[in-house]
């Protein structure tokens, strides 16, 4: 999957007000709209010293909400940050809207921000750690039924936290693979 980066520092090192966030949102959405199918846009906070909740809500959370509502199918948004505490107000705004976003911190740790039920959180972390999973893999790893694992994958897909690929089975029918949006050490 191709990942394109948008540097939020282009809008300032200390961002920002809600109006500034709206201006950034237009740019973020334009980048998302121009992604190819299965494309990922990384909102990168390198060079940003302060990210206010108001700016984050407009520039990042609103586009995530629109993706989750079904716009731009097959496109994804993630966040990258040099430090975790830079993401605190963004996480609070995601929680307020009851949605989540994957964030990569310092190129190493990957964490879901916002509100994600524990059963989806553990599933997402497993998929990220292993790069890809079928419902069978997840069922075996987490000790849940294959049907429950398939439901979890479908829910993560609807939340745009994993990319779902349908592959034909050798025995007939299709099998859904959840593919991680990020690869971390």
């Amino acid at each position: 999957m191709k990942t394109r980066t948008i540097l939020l520092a282009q809008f300032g090192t200390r961002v920002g007000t809600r109006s500034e966030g709206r201006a950034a949102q237009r740019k973020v959405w334009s980048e998302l709209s121009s992604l190819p199918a299965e494309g990922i846009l990384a909102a990168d906070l390198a060079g940003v010293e302060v990210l206010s909740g108001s700016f984050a809500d407009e520039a990042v959370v609103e586009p995530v909400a629109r993706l989750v509502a079904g716009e731009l199918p097959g496109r994804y948004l993630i966040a990258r940050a040099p430090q975790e505490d830079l993401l605190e107000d963004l996480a609070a705004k995601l929680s307020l809207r009851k949605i989540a976003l994957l964030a990569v911190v310092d190129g190493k740790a990957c964490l879901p921000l916002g509100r994600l039920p524990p059963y989806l959180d553990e599933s997402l972390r497993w998929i990220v750690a292993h790069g890809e999973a079928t419902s069978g893999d997840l069922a075996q790893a987490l000790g849940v039924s294959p049907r429950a694992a398939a439901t979890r994958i479908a829910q993560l897909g609807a939340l745009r936290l994993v990319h779902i690929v349908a592959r034909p089975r050798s025995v007939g029918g299709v099998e859904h693979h959840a593919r991680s949006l990020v690869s971390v050490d």
Partner: protein
Amino acid sequence: MTPAPLYAPRRLDVTTAERALPTWEAWFPRPLVDLSRLTRFDPFGLLLLVLLGQRCREAGGRLRVLLPESARTRDRLVGSGLFRYLEGAYWTDKPLPDGITAEPGFTTARVREEGDVRPIVDGIGERLEARFPFGEKANRLLVGAVIELLQNIPHHAALPGTEGDPFGLACLEEDRDYLHLAIVDKGIGLAASLGLNPRFRGITAGQALEATLVGGASRFDLPGRGGALRRIREAVVASAGRFYVRSAGGAFLQEDVDWSVGEVVSFPGVQISIRLPRTLFERGTEADDG
């Protein structure tokens, strides 16, 4: 009604400003502000005085100020910008000293519209970075609070469609033991702003403070709106700071893990005081020293 007796504080801060306000309000719009015994003042007391002076000016009156006996305090008061903001609408018992440069401990700025926020935020951010290069997280907390609180002034302090000037001001003081941020306006206040949302119509000042600061309420029912003041309060608590907000006749105080809401003398707008321990900003230095 008998006017409250004259009160001449030695310190003008969050606590003593509340004691002085009944006297000042009783003589509105020509209050006698006795600062003759003053030796110290903080951003909250200073900005409250500016707002009072502005209100007097708009009502056709003026502040009558007994200047501090202490020459140093007098110079600091002049250097803080108090009289500049009053734009001539004051009387003093002595001539103001000439040639006073800006008080270095205070950074004061006025917010008229959202576009004013960015330069103020950058100015404060750059100053904090220069003063506390290792206090990255604390700098971030304070600057983030400045962004949210300053943009609230053009967004919330005036009734939509009206042209009243809420006279928003911000002041940051670097004290020996703490950093003190005050952000004030003389706009419609939290209860009136929140009351624009039908869910909160008729809410009292105390209820509005609790709904906003504890419940995260917003005047907008849009997803993603609200919660900024609550987040700032929580961050201040986590940093062992002190958080005080007054709006109209209500006041909210958060100290340690306890918060309380009480009644105070009514004064228009919202006035906020955030005090954070200086050690938060110097932690990196301490670690290096240790």
